[in-house]
């Protein structure tokens, strides 16, 4: 018996029992669909965690001014006014640094026409969009010449746009008043939503850091330096180099404490992504159990089928089927069932994934590897759980099988 003939025999037998065949397949269909859907949800969750970490800037290094001691009282980090835009320019020259932006933060009222709004004014460099992985919704972002000319231009976050321009008109080209100075709106940012800490990240007005220093704070120092390393692997070396460079620039001699602090978000990113991986594994584990149950269902039905078809097996043996041929036929039936079930399961799983994404608004992602793995695994389920019943069929004595009532 060649492979084609065996396959034909198996398919014929399955087609003759359509209801039983489809019910048997159902277990595998549900198992595989469950694997696909849960993995898609798990992977989607992981990717969205990764994206939100990336939006924080996963390669991000933050330099804060250190604390100062005045009359025995130590301020916290950020209390000292020691970081300057020039420090930022020097850091930008270091290898492994992709971009640097000084950050100047001021809380202030902003007025546009008849509307006013308390918001966060942030003085930044043109590199800020790159560092934050934040894109423009309309207009243009701040340019190097805006910084150089201390221009009175502003880019608005979506919350500010809706508060100051509630009628939906485009804010581009409009004038807003910040601490008495008129600024021209040149662009708006896309909505970021809440940060990991629950802050509204869109409640912000971005202006050149030079303008913020000159017109709002009146200081020559900045609140922060945000540094983006070229790759995640560069974060730690860059952090070390930045520390060394700033210590040199600030003429700090050990054991004198540093007047700044350099931090990165990698620990946070790692914790978040490993949590995601554990979640994904957990979901896949649950799904694998349902696939296992599907496999046991196949074994169950195949056992019933062998008993029910005992006389058929006896007859096949009497008219010349070898034991091996009977084994192959039943094994093939089970493999065909589970593989077709697996393929249908993938289709159902993909549809289910789309449905989940649409209805629950959950991010989903179907890794192609899992699709092939689940079809392959269900075929293996067919072999594994089909072997015992097939063996049982092949070992029947033809005489007893023919007498079986």
């Amino acid at each position, binding site marked *: *018996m060649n492979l084609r*003939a065996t396959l034909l*025999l198996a398919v*014929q037998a399955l087609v*003759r*029992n359509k209801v039983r065949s489809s019910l048997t397949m159902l277990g595998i269909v549900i198992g595989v669909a469950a694997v696909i859907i849960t993995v898609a949800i798990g992977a989607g969750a992981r990717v969205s965690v990764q994206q939100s970490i990336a939006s924080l800037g996963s390669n991000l290094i933050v330099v804060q001014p250190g604390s100062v001691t005045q009359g025995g009282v130590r301020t916290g980090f950020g209390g000292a006014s020691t970081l300057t835009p020039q420090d930022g320019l020097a850091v930008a020259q270091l290898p492994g640094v992709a971009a640097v932006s000084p950050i100047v933060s001021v809380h202030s009222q902003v007025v546009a026409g008849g509307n006013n709004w308390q918001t966060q004014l942030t003085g930044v460099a043109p590199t800020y969009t790159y560092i934050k992985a934040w894109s423009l919704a309309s207009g243009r972002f701040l340019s190097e010449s805006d910084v150089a000319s201390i221009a009175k231009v502003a880019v608005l976050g979506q919350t500010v746009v809706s508060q100051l321009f509630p009628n939906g008109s485009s804010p581009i080209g409009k004038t807003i008043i910040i601490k008495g100075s008129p600024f021209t709106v040149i662009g708006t940012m896309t909505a970021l939503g809440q940060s990991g800490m629950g802050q509204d990240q869109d409640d912000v007005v971005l202006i050149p850091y030079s303008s913020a220093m000159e017109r709002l704070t009146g200081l020559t120092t900045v609140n922060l330096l945000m540094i983006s390393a070229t790759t995640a692997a560069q974060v730690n070396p860059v952090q070390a180099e930045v520390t060394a460079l700033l210590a040199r620039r600030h003429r700090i001699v050990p054991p004198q404490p540093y007047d700044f602090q350099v931090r990165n978000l990698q620990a946070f990113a790692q914790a978040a992504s490993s949590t995601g991986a554990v979640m994904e594994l957990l979901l896949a584990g649950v799904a694998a159990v349902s696939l296992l149950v599907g496999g046991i269902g196949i074994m169950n039905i195949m056992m019933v089928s062998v008993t029910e078809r005992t*006389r*058929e097996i*006896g*007859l*096949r*043996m*009497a*008219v*010349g*089927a*070898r*034991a*091996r*041929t009977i084994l192959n036929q039943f094994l093939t039936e089970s493999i065909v069932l589970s593989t077709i079930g697996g393929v249908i399961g993938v289709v159902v799983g993909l549809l289910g994934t789309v449905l989940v994404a649409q209805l629950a608004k959950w991010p989903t992602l179907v890794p192609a590897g899992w699709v092939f793995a689940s079809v392959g695994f269900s075929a293996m389920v067919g072999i594994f759980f089909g072997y015992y019943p097939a063996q049982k069929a092949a070992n029947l004595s*033809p*005489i007893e099988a*023919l007498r079986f009532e």
Partner: protein
Amino acid sequence: MSDVVEVRGLRKVYPMGDDEVVALGGVDLSIAKGEFIAVMGPSGSGKSTFMQIVGMLDRATAGTYLFEGNDVAKFSDDDRADVRSRRLGFVFQSYNLLPRTSALENVELPMVYAGVPPEQRRDIALEKMDIIGIKALADHMPNQMSGGQQQRIAIARSLVNDPALILADEPTGALDTKTSRDVMRLFSDLNAHRNITIMLVTHEPDVAAFAKRIVTFRDGHILSDIPNVERAA
């Protein structure tokens, strides 16, 4: 030319606890080509065991069995399966057709295992069904046919590989008197006009009367082996 079947001192013993049951206690019998032999006897006489051993569905405990001159004791299980598919035909009391499978496909079944190419199977199956006079039933399912029709399908199935011997185990046991007679007449015709060797197992004298030779078993031994004068002529 050797006989189709030649058995000498054939014994079959079944262990039963500490005891053993002797089903066949040393049987000698030859079946030549073209014979139509009826094996009779009450239940427990060993006639069914004899048929199963001759049909290579079971092995003897002792004695020799030559099939077409070959020693069956030396056959592996696969060899025996191959002989069953190519050289033997079976007809059972309960027809044993595959359910939900057309008559044509049922007739084709032994050829599937004998490795006959699919294109030829159909032609051969239809040819044999034509001989039996049931070609019109080719597309029918077993549950759409009468018992007599199903048994004819089974007879056509036993013919497809041009077997050296057809073994019919109580082929009329489930049929009414008239249908039984029709089926037996069919066996007679196949034997008389196509020289097909047939071994029939039955306990009904009416049915055995169609054979040309009647062997009666009792308690595992042959009680009598006589030509059927009426038909042997």
